[in-house]
């Protein structure tokens, strides 16, 4: 194999002003043509490690660095980031901020221009790379008019135009919807087959790790384990303990004590056959019946949409004749691609948007008559990005914002805030500065801030985006608890496993209309319709289809397994 392309030796790094090391004693190599996946919980040092490869650390983020990072014989300490750009390409999570041209072609030209590549050659590279990522048709469009997925593809193309030896991708799909994720992954699948390019990717999607050659697990700045993909993914317990989502299929087979764990649906089906496992049909039917019973508990309508349509300025039909009902006490998910109308629909529930045709009733009264200020008291809306709403210097003031606006007495405010902070698990942190909290902490503050005005309904727009697996779980467990205590919960998400495990009922939206609705199991049993809406059920659900059932979690399947008892 020869010399590794990247070799990191005894790397230690501390951000300026921080007491703890973000990276501590990291040794790692990347071989030519290799695809290495870097996984770990939030704040583990994944992005920090990624940023050392092209010299953003230590040049851009000032801090204390010891050890060395050598890429193609260049010590990153001795070269500027710009100089490293020839050999290391970097794609960031934020697809908005990394594009800066007004035209797709020029975006790709930017890198080669900086290295004084002749104009004719730049032209060739533009054509090549646009074709590679499938954006030829958009070559003259401004990047700002592209979808998130297209922007990320453009970012990849613009970096590839520099012909780097190493491509570092820092959570390239975290902010994308499922279809865009698939598009970006389709590109990475082709990239990882190239033997002239080494790939280092930070990613939360464990199913994508199946394509990697090796996986490195990192936590608290230490590499916990580096090894071949199969070996790492089979270590379900280690992944779970690190806060990385394990795959459902090995998780299931581990519970039935199989030595060589299958990882993919194909392998799962095969192993299921060879092991002679069987599902108890009676138990399965019982489970389906229970789904229905659980639904019937909630029947008083809280939100009703009747022939709701919404047309944005400039004739964009975002919702087309939607009729739906949400009952008091339910926990429902709304899923669909970006642009399918999910958020537009949800914004009608709290009066941020008013119907352009049809009607929305909340608590039996049309939203048009109630207005956003009144509706806001009964319907809370947590926006996707907590940083769009947090502005106070103290968590307490942030959470107290709404009750104070509504002229609660200071005692009531205190009580509301204390209750809200308790509900989100932030008791005693009222004096903290929200901006020093982690993303998941800020997300909780945002939820608390909405809870403080005691709404009946809580709408959460992508509450789990940008959080790691453990944080996603704890966020959703918290939401579930709120639901059990009587709040009606409506959440919008792109994470299919969150829907599978937490929603009782789900609405699938496509092109401004409801494509599918029903219990979560009913919805997930329609694999083909979901795929038609470009939603991909998790591997585990896929695996259960192939056996002729719809199981949402490994636990469910284990419970229905014939003759297996631990």
């Amino acid at each position: 194999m020869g010399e590794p392309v990247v070799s990191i030796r005894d790397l230690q790094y501390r951000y300026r002003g921080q007491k703890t090391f973000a990276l501590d004693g990291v040794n790692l190599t990347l071989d030519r043509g290799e695809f290495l996946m870097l996984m770990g919980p939030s704040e583990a040092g994944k992005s920090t490690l990624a940023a050392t490869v092209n010299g953003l650390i230590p040049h851009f983020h000032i801090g204390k660095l010891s050890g060395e990072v050598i890429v193609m014989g260049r010590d990153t300490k001795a070269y500027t980031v710009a100089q490293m750009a020839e050999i290391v390409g970097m794609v960031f999570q934020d697809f908005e901020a990394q594009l800066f041209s007004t035209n797709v072609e020029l975006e790709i030209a930017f890198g080669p221009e900086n290295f004084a590549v002749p104009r004719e050659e730049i032209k060739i590279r533009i054509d090549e790379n646009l074709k590679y990522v499938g954006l030829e048709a958009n070559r003259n469009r401004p990047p700002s008019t592209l979808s998130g997925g297209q922007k990320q593809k453009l970012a990849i193309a613009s970096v590839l135009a520099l012909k780097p030896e190493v491509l570092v991708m820092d959570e390239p799909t975290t902010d994308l919807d499922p279809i865009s994720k698939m598009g970006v992954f389709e590109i990475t699948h082709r990239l990882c087959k190239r033997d002239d390019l080494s790939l280092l990717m930070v990613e939360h999607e464990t199913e994508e790790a199946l394509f990697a050659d090796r996986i490195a697990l990192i936590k608290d700045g230490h590499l916990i384990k580096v090894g071949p993909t199969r070996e790492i993914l089979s270590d379900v317990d280690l992944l779970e303990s690190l806060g990385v989502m394990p795959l459902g299929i090995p998780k299931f087979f581990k519970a039935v004590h199989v030595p060589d764990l299958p990882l993919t649906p194909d392998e799962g089906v095969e192993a299921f056959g060879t092991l002679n496992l069987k599902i108890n049909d009676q138990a399965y039917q019982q489970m389906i019946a229970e789904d229905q019973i659980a639904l019937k508990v909630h029947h008083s309508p809280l939100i009703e949409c009747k022939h709701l349509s919404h047309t944005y300025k400039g004739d964009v039909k975002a919702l087309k004749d939607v009729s739906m009902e949400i009952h008091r006490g339910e926990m429902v998910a709304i899923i669909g691609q970006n642009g399918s109308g999910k958020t537009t629909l949800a914004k009608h529930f709290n009066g941020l948007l008013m119907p352009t045709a049809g009607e929305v009733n909340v608590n039996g009264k049309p939203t048009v008559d109630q207005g956003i200020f009144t509706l806001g008291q009964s319907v809370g809306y947590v926006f996707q990005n907590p940083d769009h709403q947090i502005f106070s210097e103290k968590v307490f003031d942030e959470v107290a914002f709404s009750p104070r606006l509504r002229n609660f007495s200071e005692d009531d405010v205190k009580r509301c805030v204390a209750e809200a902070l308790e509900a989100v698990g932030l008791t005693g942190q009222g004096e903290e500065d929200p901006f020093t909290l982690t993303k998941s902490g800020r997300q909780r503050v945002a939820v608390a801030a909405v809870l403080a005005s005691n709404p009946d309904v809580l709408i959460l727009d992508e509450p789990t985006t940008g959080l790691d697996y453990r944080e996603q779980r704890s966020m959703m467990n918290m939401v579930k608890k709120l639901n059990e205590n009587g709040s009606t919960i409506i959440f919008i998400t792109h994470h299919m496993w969150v829907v599978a495990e937490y929603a009782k009922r789900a609405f699938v939206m496509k092109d401004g209309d409801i494509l599918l609705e029903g219990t979560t199991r009913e919805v997930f049993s329609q694999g083909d319709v979901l795929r038609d809406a470009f939603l991909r059920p998790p591997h585990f659900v896929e695996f259960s289809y192939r056996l002729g059932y719809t199981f949402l979690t490994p636990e469910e399947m284990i419970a229905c397994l014939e003759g297996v008892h631990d």
Partner: protein
Amino acid sequence: MDAEIYLDNNSFIHRLDPRVKIIIFLLTFVAILLFQNPLWMLPITVLIIAQLIISGALVNLRRIRYILIVLTVSSMILWNLFSTGETQLFWRISVESMSFAIARTLLMILMISAGMILITSTRNEELVNGMIRLGMPYRVGFAISTALRLVPTIVSSTITISQAQRSRGLDLESGNLLQRIKKFLPLLVPVFLSTIRNTNIFGMALESKGFGAKEERTFYLVFEMGRADYLVLVFSIVFMLVSIYFAILGFGQIEGLIRF
């Protein structure tokens, strides 16, 4: 929500060489400043209106109409207060101060319009490229384009943020001016912070794509001056020279105007 200022209209003005557009822009500024009398400003006003219509920049002016209205009203009042003349019109307002106020207001609106025409019809890169080819250092040009680029980003994040705060019961529509300004505070902090965060990533992405890696760089965009460019340029220069000639002869001033 589209917050871009550049409009991809491909009008006659869009197709002009950016260098020509920059030169016209500078010449326009001089031409606007030459005369005190609004009547003498009419030719340049007509030219600018024509450009506004051709380039489609009126749409962008509409977007900032509130700012324009506030500017117009305050400028009309102020210039009337700060100057006077012999012919009384009503109260403390004289014919001279009135026409001076009109001229000054016109001046401001025309300057804004000229700027708007330039950025409506010229892509960021073209603008920077044009400036660099006219002798500006690359880094300075890039800084200007970055500043322009920030505008749409800030606008779109402001929209999202105001929705988030309204959902929490913030009522931006009522109250007196002071109360309203105070209410905007919850919007400003997240807007600033998210802008700072964005620019941080922007900086990283910039360096990661080799910004400033080498002394010389290629420009993928190349312009060639066409016949239209030369014609427009010649016309502008002639227009300019004629204007200066009249200004030197002393035309276009307001007789009897007294400025404080």
